[in-house]
């Protein structure tokens, strides 16, 4: 592809920046107003002395048509899974089945108040118990809390349980070990839980360096946090020895479930010796990412740790009805109410639709597609750990950078012109100029081939016309941004002219 034959304007590129919603509509416009008051009015200042608002908030003033056009236009400037392939490594951007959306909006789910009497929410509790049982089985860790709102929240919940267990045993500890390939949430969670992070390097295989691990494992260590498969997309072949070494010093093994999509029905974190796992239902279980959330981060633990889980937990009673129960040594609660129920409904619908065979096929296809893509791109980009991968793999633009001055960032931006969302870039940190690709099982063979072809074409452009790649993107609603300006002089809210 040359500059003269850049892709024609895609649907997204027909959109261009527009005014904020505060600048749309006539000053007296309105969309939805409260009905006329049918009870005696109460003067706010006399009912709440000194608290009547003196200057009203300056909210938008728009008619309904302007709202739909405004947000419609904003949506046109966005790229979602429905817009095209989204091979964002570690994020599992799979297709979001639409029946799940409809299910979460059923009045019998969406209309529930969290403090309704339990006899009026039996269906909701049954759904949550069903999801707990299914996730526990996939994890090989039978006790489950659905409370955490996200993966990082799940990590924290699990570490809190470990801390409570160590404290209860009169054996408080101070450190948590993580590999150098870990997601940033892992060390951030460690700090929030009052522990110190100890980092272990990866070895030449891209796996945990067993010798280095044994060196840092002492009786101050509370836990090891490990993503398996790891963020290079490789399965930790020493996993049984790793979890055994962790247990040998009285510490817990924590599995970051970000990459669970690779292994469902093949191997379970519980069977690998892990004591706890969080599941990102917005990755593995197809609930949508929502432009950043909401997600869900259920935590699955061993029977031994069940008594520390946050409460209350939905449970099935002997008579077949459902109730809430808080474990005797519970850490407390990590949020209000019971969890991101609306998200959990979607995850439940997914797991019921697929069943055991369906989930296994998901993982098998996710792994097969990643390996297909890896082989397709061999020789086009550097692939530092070029062996059978799990559901994702990491390649590098190091050669492109050295030979043509084209960096991973440039490749990612150029991919936008070809109609693809870029892979995860510059992660994991141990790979120079990293590009992490996770195609997921919901991309067709045609999609995989076209993604491969686009990346090949960009690599060729890097040689023939590096400035073309370095200047990309050209066809998106906006082009590269001045991010330094945004950070040096932060403008984080709209203000009327002259303020």
């Amino acid at each position, binding site marked *: 592809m040359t500059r003269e034959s850049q892709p024609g304007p895609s649907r*997204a590129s027909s*959109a261009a920046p527009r005014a904020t*919603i505060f600048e749309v509509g006539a000053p007296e*416009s309105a*969309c*939805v*107003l409260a009905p006329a*008051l049918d009870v005696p009015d109460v003067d706010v200042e006399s009912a*709440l002395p000194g*608290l009547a*608002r003196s200057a009203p908030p300056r*909210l*938008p*003033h*728009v008619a309904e048509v302007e709202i*739909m056009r405004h947000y419609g236009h*904003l949506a046109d*400037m*966005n*790229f979602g899974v*429905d817009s095209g392939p989204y091979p964002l490594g570690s994020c599992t951007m799979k297709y*979001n089945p639409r*029946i799940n959306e409809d*299910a979460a909006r059923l009045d019998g789910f969406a209309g529930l*108040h969290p403090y309704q009497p339990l006899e009026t929410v039996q*269906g*909701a509790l049954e759904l949550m118990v069903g999801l707990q049982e299914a996730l526990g089985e996939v994890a090989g860790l039978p006790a489950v809390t659905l409370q955490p709102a996200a993966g990082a929240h799940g990590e924290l919940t699990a570490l*809190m349980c470990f801390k409570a267990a160590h404290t209860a045993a009169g054996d408080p500890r101070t450190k948590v070990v993580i590999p150098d390939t870990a*997601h*940033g949430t892992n060390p*951030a969670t460690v700090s929030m839980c009052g522990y110190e992070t100890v980092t272990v390097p990866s070895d030449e295989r891209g796996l945990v360096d067993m010798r280095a691990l044994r060196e840092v494992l002492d009786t101050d260590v509370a836990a090891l946090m490990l993503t398996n498969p790891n963020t290079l997309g490789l399965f930790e072949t020493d996993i049984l020895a790793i979890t055994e070494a962790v247990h040998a010093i009285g510490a817990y093994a924590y599995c970051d479930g970000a990459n669970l999509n690779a292994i469902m029905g093949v191997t379970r974190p519980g069977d690998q*010796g892990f004591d706890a796992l969080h599941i990102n239902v917005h990755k593995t279980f197809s609930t949508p*990412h*929502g*432009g*950043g*959330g909401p997600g869900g981060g259920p935590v699955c633990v061993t029977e031994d740790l069940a008594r520390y889980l946050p409460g209350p937990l939905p449970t099935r009673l002997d008579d077949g009805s459902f109730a809430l129960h808080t474990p005797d040594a519970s850490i407390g*609660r*990590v949020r*209000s*109410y019971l969890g991101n*129920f609306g998200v959990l409904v979607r995850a439940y619908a997914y797991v*019921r*639709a697929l*069943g055991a065979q369906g989930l*296994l*096929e*998901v993982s098998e296809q996710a792994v*097969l597609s990643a390996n297909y893509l890896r082989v397709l791109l061999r020789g086009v980009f550097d692939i530092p750990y070029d062996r*059978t991968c799990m559901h994702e793999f990491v390649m590098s633009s190091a050669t492109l950078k050295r030979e043509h001055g084209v960096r991973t960032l440039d490749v990612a931006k150029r991919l936008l012109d070809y109609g693809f969302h870029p892979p995860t870039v510059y992660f994991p940190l141990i790979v120079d100029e990293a590009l992490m690709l996770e195609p997921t*099982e919901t991309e*067709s*063979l045609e999609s995989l081939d076209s993604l491969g072809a686009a990346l090949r074409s960009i690599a060729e452009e890097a040689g023939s016309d590096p400035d073309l790649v370095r200047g990309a993107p050209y066809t998106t*609603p*906006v082009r590269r*941004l001045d991010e330094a*300006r*945004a950070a040096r002089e932060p403008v*984080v809210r*709209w203000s009327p002219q002259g303020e």
Partner: protein
Amino acid sequence: MRHVPVTCEQREAMLRGLGVSSADELFADVPPAARLGRPLDLPGPMSEIELAAHLQTLARRNAPATACVSFAGGGVYDHYVPSVVDHVLRRPEFFTAYTPYQPEVSQGTLQAIFEYQTMICELTGMDVANASMYDGATALVEAALMACRVTRRSRVVCAPTMHPEWQRTLATYAAAGDREVDYSLAVDATAGVCDPHDEGAGIERLCEGGDVAAVLVQSPNFFGGIEDVREMARLAHEAGALLVVAVNPVLLGVLEPPGALGADIVVGEGQCLGNAMSLGGPGLGIFACRQPHVRQMPGRLVGRTVDVDDRTAYVLTLSTREQHIRREKATSNICSNHALNALAAGAYLAAVGTEGLAGIGRACIAKAHYLRDRLLATGAFEAPWDGPFAHEFALRYRGDVSRMHTAMLERGYLAGVEVARFSAEWPSGGPPVSDEGLVLFAVTEKRTRTELDAFADEVGSL
């Protein structure tokens, strides 16, 4: 296999291309002892028709508050959600997108968040609002932790009139993070609010060690009472502490913003702004602060800039605060947030506008006052105190609360929330006022006078 678009034939060809005969061979790195070796024990798969019927069945086993005349509150409220809000949320470019890390193809999400941040600043009277937290409870915890960073202190005073589940959440985080929370601020049981001037347990006394990072207060509080936020701000600031105020944002069209009362950080549960109740989740954690503290703020933040063609554009900014860059020194571990709920709040606030929000606030307040008078007039309830309140209030039922709740449920009413249900949540061991017979009633703009009259008549004649 309907979720996987690769055909069996294509799959075979892909496997052949990799030189393997089955997908199972791709898992050779998994040690045999860690292999499951059997199918997962899960219920069988369902066709979409069966699944739709199954989900309908489960949904019908619930009696949603929206199908009742609901007076249940406690952070989640049965407000009207304009139709337009869900039609915005259903745009797949919003809900199927990831976090906007590639700004060139995420301007929709980014601009929507920028507008949401602006609206929250307008409502709260603060300078900066983040892109959202999980819910009000975790936003409160993050505010406490932020105050500790700002002041370099490690203890906070939490008003015992705060929502008990928020207190419990705070206590859970504090225990893990080795921080101390003091719940002993004095409460005036005759007013249902804190007494910040109390000699033995007022703010001045609790802060006299000079180690208190923040005073945390909710107003209206859990019991509906209006705290003296101005005085609490003054006293907290005198002690070198920050004041964190938890708000109900739907009331901020008519009530003074906490920014005008001296708050340093404002948090709140934003479910009431266009989000479904959904059994309490996903909600929306509102978080706003003052400009000088922005580098200690948790969560994502969108800023305005320009692209290479000098066009206005939006981007995630001040990201060095966050976990993916600062790792163990990040301001929080939060990654996924509640962006779609923030989008709903933005669309909701656009739909109602300044006048609409004020109208909703006035209607809630007027209807709550009307209902309280009607309920007291029945003689079945007594007022535990007579302080100012907004759209939620507590009364003592003279009879058996759970029997009353059951009887009213049969008549189609969710007759408020029984405070005693929270008995295990209070970190200090119990409620700050007697919860005997205490019922919380919340009234939204959806309730009609006819419903209020009928409810009072029926509950009064039990």
